[in-house]
């Protein structure tokens, strides 16, 4: 699979109107191979016939429940499955995710949210292995480029190595680029612990990281501080 829209999707829901709407949303989004099923029986037959790459599954179906159907599908294949259900209880969500579902979205939902989540699942499942260009081309920060796989930063004066902790911090910030990542989330990622007692350590790591990725570490352009909250990696065009 070269593109997410090549992914074939089976939509299972007992409400024909919702089924049509989902079909239409995904079609407009660009997905080519879409299949519909309004019952467990129908879903089984489409699954066997078409072998879809992803399933959007409702929990309450007229001839069975989606959780059991999920287990059947999972026994036959490892394809990603997203639950789309009106059951919003935490227990249901946890059951669905606990069974191994890739996501659990409750109705009513924003179409954009559904398509974004679908795209994320497809990328994670089918394109992550064939998409190494991020790391290969590197993260371009002005005149410097970060190579996550190698753990190095190419600067005009030469290549600088990143320590394991610096790499973890930068990866976490990169994953949430444009968004503030709290001190607590960073400490959890790097040390698996809370912010308390790591305040100075984190600051030191950030300072060293800035020395490596910033042109002027005293006036950072990329690794920005959200005072009292956390850090943010500024948005910019990647190489």
């Amino acid at each position, binding site marked *: 699979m070269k593109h997410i829209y090549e992914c074939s999707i089976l939509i299972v829901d007992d*409400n024909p*109107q*919702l089924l049509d*709407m*989902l079909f*239409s*949303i995904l079609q*407009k989004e660009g997905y080519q191979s879409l299949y519909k099923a309004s019952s467990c029986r129908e879903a089984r037959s489409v699954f066997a016939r078409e072998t879809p790459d992803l399933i959007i599954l409702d929990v309450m179906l007229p001839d069975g429940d989606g959780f059991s159907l999920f287990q059947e599908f999972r026994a036959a294949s490892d394809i990603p499955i997203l639950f789309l259900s*009106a*059951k*919003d*209880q*935490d*227990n249901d969500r946890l059951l669905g995710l606990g069974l191994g579902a890739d996501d659990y*979205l*409750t*109705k*009513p*939902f*924003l*179409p*954009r*949210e559904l398509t974004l989540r679908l795209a994320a699942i497809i990328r994670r499942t089918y394109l992550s292995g064939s998409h190494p260009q991020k790391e290969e081309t590197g993260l371009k920060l002005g005149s410097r480029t970060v190579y996550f796989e190698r753990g190095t930063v190419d600067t005009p004066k030469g290549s600088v190595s990143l320590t394991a902790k610096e790499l973890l911090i930068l990866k976490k910030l990169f994953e*949430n680029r*444009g*968004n*503030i*990542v*709290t*001190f*607590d*989330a960073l*400490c*959890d990622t790097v040390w*698996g*612990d*809370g*912010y*308390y007692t790591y*305040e100075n350590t984190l600051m030191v790591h950030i300072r060293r990281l800035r020395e490596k990725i910033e042109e002027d570490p005293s006036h950072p352009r990329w690794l920005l501080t*959200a005072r*009292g*909250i*956390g850090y943010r990696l500024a948005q910019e065009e990647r190489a």
Partner: protein
Amino acid sequence: MKDLLKICRRYIMTAVLTICFVLGINILFLFVYLIRENMYKSEPYYYNWRTERLAESLAWDGENYSLFPEAAEKIDADYAFAMLIDPEGQVVWSRNLPEEIPLSYSLNDIASMSRWYLKDYPVKVWEHPRGLFVAAQPKNSVAKYDMEFRISTLKSFPSYLGAYLLCNLLMVFLLSLFFGVRLYKSLKSVAGGIENLHLQKPLNLPERGMTATLAQKLNDASILLFRQKLALDKRDNARTEWISGVSHDIRTPLALIMGHADSLEQNSSLDEEGRKEAASIRENSLQIRNLISDLNLTSKLEYDSYPLRLVSCSPAALLRSLAAWHMNNGLPEQFQLELNISPELERVTVLGDADLLTRAFRNLTTNSIRHNPKGCLIQIRAGKCRGMTEISFFDTGRGIPVAVIKTLYRPVSRPGVHTGQPEEKGRAAEGKTSRSSAPAAPHVMGLRIVKQIVEAHHGELEFELQKDVCHCVKIRLPIQEPEKAEPEKKSLLRREKPAAPRE
């Protein structure tokens, strides 16, 4: 059970004191009686003295006996008869002597008569210069008993009396103790029953002994309470399930509305007005979704059917996560968010449901944003206060009207609470129009959820009022003991961005 022991102790004390009091009163009466008797003896007409006097009133003039008229009157009035026996045993003088009384007496007769009775007449004798003077009272008027005491016994009587009283007191105490213990045992099960009444489970106390009726009444009361609890639970569950069911049923049609509205909004063939209307449908549907979610949560919190997932969480981390969420989700530029966490709070954890606490905090900040379209400064301050974590949410906007706060503290079942009518009126009075098409309910419900979440965490919620408007809401949460917090420390970490933004 402590109360029961107290009751029994008091019972024993009261019994002992009662006996002591009665005994004391008796001793007092005896004392008074003895004093009065002695005083009586000193009177001129005491019995013994009278016999002596009567004897003295009988005079011998060498030939005849004569009795003073005063004494004769006395004998006629109070005595059956009187006589004088000479040393030979012959009656030499008499007055009112019945026929049945012999006129001659042997020594034996005299000895027997002097102490007891003469033909059933109680008699008293007194020495006379010419023999023995005998005065007899009417039959059945006086009882005579022979009493003898050893002198040693009489001498040791005072000490015996002390020991006797002491023994009596001891006996009274032991008996009271015995009955007290019996009472304690019989009351114990009843007291246990009363203590267990609050559990609202049917009691099965043994209905026997002195507390049989009490136990029976308690058993009946417990069954009544249990039935009431079942009825209440049934009603509460029905209400929660109904809300849950309705919200579930609304979800699919709402998903269709939102989906189609979104599709219309992006439909380029539609004119701008149409797209705006579609956007309005989508936004309002989103609001209904949040309302349903709030309604579900508030009903579950109200009836304690929300399973709290309690873990050690750091309030500082939760607040940073909240601030980051606002920043990351595009805080409108007319708003300024300030987060001020005291360094001492960094090490503090509270035992709570992190999602619920975040929800409570977020409800307060989003309220500030929602109700101040022109923008304001939102300040969040956190620190320690009176041994608790105190988080203050302050804004420079219009604040929460006192009517809303009053609504919040009314019982849930009162009409108008869930509909948020008072708040709507309050806001409308201030000339607000931008939210006129949107339901006002989420705001009051939002605050109600905050209140319920804080209460579920055994915390305190305070609204600081300034001229009928509240600009500062304070939440205080109990701090978790450090040793309890340690094993769960890892779970306090939060994601920096919630997966599905609700508002």
